[in-house]
């Protein structure tokens, strides 16, 4: 048997921990990542990491960030790490990449997808105005670019990230106009017990809320703004009779898994009702129904960064087991127990901060749902009446929602919820958007050049 060719996609917490395990077993995984540096979204490194200290960059997570970056530096000589490399297709035992102004293929025997997550957004009138960012985007501006999205910022959405980013902005000198959480106090009290699965993390979260209050930030619960409005001197978040004046808005209702590559690799997806989103089918060990394909981290369903490290390691051990290598059963058991604890914690979080998808049914006609194609709620309602789409892929085919550059990554679940409200179907019956290569846009002329360090996709193209 020839040596296994292991490709890991994503150099965040899950991907780096997976690489560590595999390198430790003497295998030399290829680690591919779109970004400039390892760390993923949460432990993202600024263009020049030496300029800002860890404590300032990552706050309470400084030690975890340092540990992950140091692990990466230690294993770097034992792995084949390729930054600025986008994987855009998976087919026939190969990943197709876009890097260095060209495209190429990398064959694999085993594929470990640690593709992470993106913001789950909910549309509302005015969310396409300049100055409105996702929560994740607002945080990355601060972390990577060391700048704020505005001087006076309102945060709208739900979930732990809402409070974390608000606190980070306040500490960085922004005035926080308001934190508006769709989660109700009742739901938060009712589910709080589950937080005991991770008491330290829970305390930290409570600390954020307390700090915001101490700083005099209005924190509203059980509230969903009707609109973001343009005003003479900036923006305003409209909530009933109140208007919160601001110059920027951070918007986010939790996270959603990035599942396109899993879909292309033949991993079926299932609807996660608690998170109101689609996730690849996988066991706690990261194995999927597709032979030789593993998923780990938030790309396998949202459990957070700490869990991602455990899941990356666990999936790597599953891969080693499947290669017939000796694996310490005690170790995998400990990892699984840790993952299970995070799953319990996450169930509580999901209960405390549910995605208010039902609210989408009440959106006014002119709210934009699919930003790439500028498809409004009215467009979806019209298409539903005329052509009767049976699922989100048909809605996309008939009415273009999800047909643009992002392939429905940001509107898919919303279009699904709106269609469900119109037809009365269960959201889970309406399917997930099919991933289509290239999963992210690639310039046409780059497709005619060969990426460095890859096999040419077409032999003759190797001029």
């Amino acid at each position: 048997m020839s040596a296994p060719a292991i490709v890991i996609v994503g150099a965040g917490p899950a991907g780096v921990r997976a690489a560590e395990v595999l390198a430790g077993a003497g295998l030399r995984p290829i680690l591919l990542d779109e970004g400039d540096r390892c760390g993923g979204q949460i432990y993202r490194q600024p263009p020049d990491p030496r300029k800002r200290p860890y404590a300032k960059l990552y706050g309470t997570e400084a030690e975890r960030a340092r540990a992950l970056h140091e692990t990466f530096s230690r294993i770097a000589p034992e792995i084949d790490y390729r930054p600025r490399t986008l994987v855009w297709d998976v087919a026939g035992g190969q990943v197709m990449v876009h890097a260095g102004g060209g495209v190429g293929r990398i064959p694999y025997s085993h594929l470990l997808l640690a593709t992470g997550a993106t913001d789950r957004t909910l549309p509302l009138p005015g969310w396409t105005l300049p100055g409105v960012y996702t929560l994740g985007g607002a945080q990355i501006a601060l972390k990577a670019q060391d700048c704020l999205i505005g001087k006076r910022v309102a945060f709208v959405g739900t979930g732990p990230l809402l409070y974390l980013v608000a606190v980070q902005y306040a500490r960085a000198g922004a005035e926080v106009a308001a934190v508006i959480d769709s989660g109700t106090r009742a739901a938060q009290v009712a589910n709080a017990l589950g937080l005991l699965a991770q008491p330290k993390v829970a305390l930290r979260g409570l600390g954020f809320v307390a700090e915001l209050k101490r700083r005099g930030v209005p924190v509203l619960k059980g509230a969903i703004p009707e609109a973001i409005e343009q005003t003479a001197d900036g923006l305003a978040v409209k909530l009933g009779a109140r208007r919160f004046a601001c110059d920027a808005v951070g918007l986010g209702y939790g996270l959603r898994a990035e599942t396109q590559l899993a879909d292309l690799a033949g991993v079926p997806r299932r609807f996660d009702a608690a998170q109101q989103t689609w996730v690849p089918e996988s066991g706690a060990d990261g194995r999927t129904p597709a032979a030789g394909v593993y998923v780990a981290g938030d790309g396998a369903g949202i459990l957070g960064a700490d869990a991602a490290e455990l899941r990356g390691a666990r999936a790597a051990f599953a891969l080693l087991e499947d290669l017939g290598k000796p694996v310490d059963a005690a170790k995998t058991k400990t990892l699984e127990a840790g993952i299970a604890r995070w799953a319990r914690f996450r169930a509580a979080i999901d209960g405390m901060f549910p995605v208010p998808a039902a609210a989408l049914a009440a959106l006014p006609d002119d709210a934009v749902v699919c930003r790439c194609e500028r498809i409004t709620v009215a467009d979806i309602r019209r298409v539903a009446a005329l052509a009767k789409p049976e699922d989100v892929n048909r809605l996309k085919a008939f009415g273009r929602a999800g047909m643009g550059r992002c392939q429905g990554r940001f509107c898919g679940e919303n279009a699904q919820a709106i269609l469900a409200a119109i037809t009365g179907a269960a959201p889970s019956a309406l399917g997930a958007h099919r991933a289509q290569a290239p999963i992210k846009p690639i310039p046409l002329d780059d497709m005619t050049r060969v990426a460095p360090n890859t096999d040419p996709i077409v032999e003759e193209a190797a001029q």
Partner: protein
Amino acid sequence: MIDADKKPLPQHVDAVVIGGGTAGCAAAMHLANAGKRVVLFEQRLAGAQASGQNYGGVRQQGRCPEELPISFRARRIWDRLPEIVGHDCGFRPSGHIKLARTAEEFAGLEAWAEMARGFGLNVAILSGNVLRAEHNYLGSWVYGGSYCATDGHANPRLVGPLFARAAERAGVDLRECCPVAKLERDGAGFRVSLADGRSTRADVAINTAGAWGADIAAQLGETYDEHVLSPNMIVTEPAAPIFAASFGVCGGDIYFRQTPRGNVLFGGGRGISDKSRLWARPLATVSVQAAAKMIGFIPAVAHLAVIRSWSGIDGSMPDDRPVLGPSPSVPGLFHAFGFSGHGFQLGPAVGEVLADLVLAGHTETDISGLSPLRFTPSTIGAA
């Protein structure tokens, strides 16, 4: 409608249509409009196979003489889609230009134009200089071309499904997600059965099962050498208008158009597919080659980003012509399948012609060159 609650089937209908592409849906609609009771079975979703996955070329130019009469009939219907299905389906009569790269290819275009003139279709022959002057975005390799002003392009994702909805409004009992498991002779008519045991009787059976058409025919003892054809398709992000006409290239295996939304859409080469799973995929190797060709033909598109690629499943016959007409061996059975990669334009007319055959026993449109009879009758079993 999706056959989710497994409603009982009607005991007996006038006609059963197997396959809900444009051809099947249009045929069902016309029959229902004429007062017939019709059930249409579609194994997945109406208009979601070849009829919904294709490139969207609405072209008469370049077709073989046997296809021209029905292609002309189809072209007249394309103008009337708003009144037939309630929407123009994005049809734009933008003109179609076929390009030649060599003197030989150019001679081929001239010969085709001469032939088409005999059928009453006017196609303008354009020299390389004229083409380059009028279409300055074309690469310098152009030798010449021919232009058919009445051709154009449309949005394939709408045509089949909107015919399906129009058929339902006309009274067709349309069952989606409902594969036909068995088609058999039952007295002078047919019995059509589903895997779950439900069945219906019909006086007439219409086989519009696309790439699966030969499988349906085989159930009644007729053998057709139908293969699967899966063209590889690519689309870019939207851009400001660069070109209006739809283009093909003689022997170039590349065709391109710019949608009303601005996306540059092009096809070239073949993807892969497995028709038993209704699964088709583009191939990166083919996409990369098509991208290089595309830039060669229109250099201005080089900076546009590709946002998606796909493929589909059409049936293809050895002589690249569909099988259309009454079954040679089974009275009451009508075939319309194997459109060989160019049936999108024909679909609406195929529906009318099938309805003519069922209702009147003949059609005004000359389809003799597409008859099932051209395939060796010796392979066709006795009724």
